[in-house]
């Protein structure tokens, strides 16, 4: 067995790709929920809402300070022991929950930084012509903050897609779990894992390309 079994690898591709939708669905769900949560956390941090601000800081510190794998095990194996209503929680749900909380902690900080990064004098200018705080946020601050935050948020999305592979440790048969099963059946571990690596790599490259296009479009307006 000196050369790669290319036929096996080619045959494996369609099998593995059939699990891609689950991988992408978990990442997409995690991303949408994490974004919503992160926006809320960022607003709390920007407005320094008493009480909530301290809780938010603790939340962010915990979810950035511990490994995602530990968090997933905590939700999947640990929490149901203490919170009985969680016994129904499946691997997919636990993964989405873990991804949401973990990544929202990171994303909250980049959204916050993007909001406070918008030049304060523009805020004053908007108020000076009689805009309300809501109009100011919607029309001036958030569009500019979005442009700053989007590249970072895209990076987190890419990280999240790769992180979905941890779901296999919770018994979810997604892209990584399927590869593991195939490899165990054929004993062609190298071929199997190099194939799945190339699949992840391809998705990430595709997204990175989209990211560059998007950034280019967002920045057009500001180029000197």
């Amino acid at each position, binding site marked *: 067995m000196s050369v790669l079994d290319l036929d096996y690898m080619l045959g494996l591709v369609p099998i593995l790709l059939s699990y891609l939708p689950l991988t992408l669905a978990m990442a997409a769900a995690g991303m949408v929920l994490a974004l919503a949560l992160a926006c809320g956390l960022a607003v709390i941090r920007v407005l320094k809402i008493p009480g909530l601000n301290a809780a938010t800081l603790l939340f962010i510190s915990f979810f950035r300070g511990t490994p995602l794998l530990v968090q997933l095990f905590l939700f999947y194996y640990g929490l149901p022991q203490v919170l009985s209503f969680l016994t129904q929680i499946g691997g997919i749900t636990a993964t989405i929950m873990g991804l949401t909380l973990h990544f929202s902690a990171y994303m909250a900080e980049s959204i916050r930084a993007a909001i406070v990064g918008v030049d304060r*004098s523009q805020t*004053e*200018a*908007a108020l000076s*012509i009689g*805009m309300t705080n809501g109009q100011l946020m919607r*029309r001036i601050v958030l569009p500019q903050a979005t442009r700053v935050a989007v590249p970072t948020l895209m990076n987190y999305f890419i990280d999240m897609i790769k992180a979905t592979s941890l779901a296999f440790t919770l018994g979810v048969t997604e892209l990584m779990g399927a590869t593991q099963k195939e490899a165990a059946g054929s004993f062609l571990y190298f071929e199997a894992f190099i194939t799945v690596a190339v699949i992840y790599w391809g998705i990430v490259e595709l997204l990175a390309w989209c990211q560059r296009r998007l950034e280019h479009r967002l920045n057009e307006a500001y180029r000197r």
Partner: protein
Amino acid sequence: MIKVHQLVKRFGDSTVLDGIDLEIERGEIIVVIGPSGTGKSTLLRCLNFLERPDAGRLTLGDLEVDVIRASRADILAARRRTAFVFQNYALFANKTALENIAEGLIVVNRWPREKAHARAREILERIGLADKADAYPASLSGGQQQRVGIGRAMAAQAEVILFDEPTSSLDPEWVEEVLGLMKQLAAERQTMLVVTHEMAFARDVADRVVFMEGGRIVEQGPPSRLFQAPEDPRTRDFLRKVLPDAPA
């Protein structure tokens, strides 16, 4: 007409505006001068409620407010009656020159987009930037940005335009074009309250010059009188520093 009555503003323990009284007739051009840290910017910012004054009454056209009791609606109404031109231009970076001027008309005055854009185009014409309608602030020179800043204030059709050192951030090469536009507005009898260190502008354009020091108005009068024959020793001192050829 603008009327400021006994306006007070404190930051912590320090009283930055210590009972300012000022009246401005429609069409009058007033220049405020005075040493650094004297409260000139704070006065302008209080008229626009960018700072909340601690006491006093403001009359801005048909609006009269006791600043302590000013409600949210009063503050928005006051802001609509005063337009601000900032030292650092403060243009909206995500909007073109045209959109910067039209923004307030659309959002605050609730004009339809087309009407607001048509008005913004007229203003761009008047400020000599018709060809820059679709340019974003980052691509404009400092002088052009400040002219758009003035255009944005013109669009507001406020009772008064407040200028806080509009040429102080500019490279020397752009100062004249901005002062030129301000002179043009003065000639059209736009009511203006201008804080500036440009003494030549004060002398040539102002109807009245106000000298402030230590949070108070020390002296005011037509530029010819104030510059030639200042009455207060503090005014004389200040003018001696800023005008090399001032009377001793």
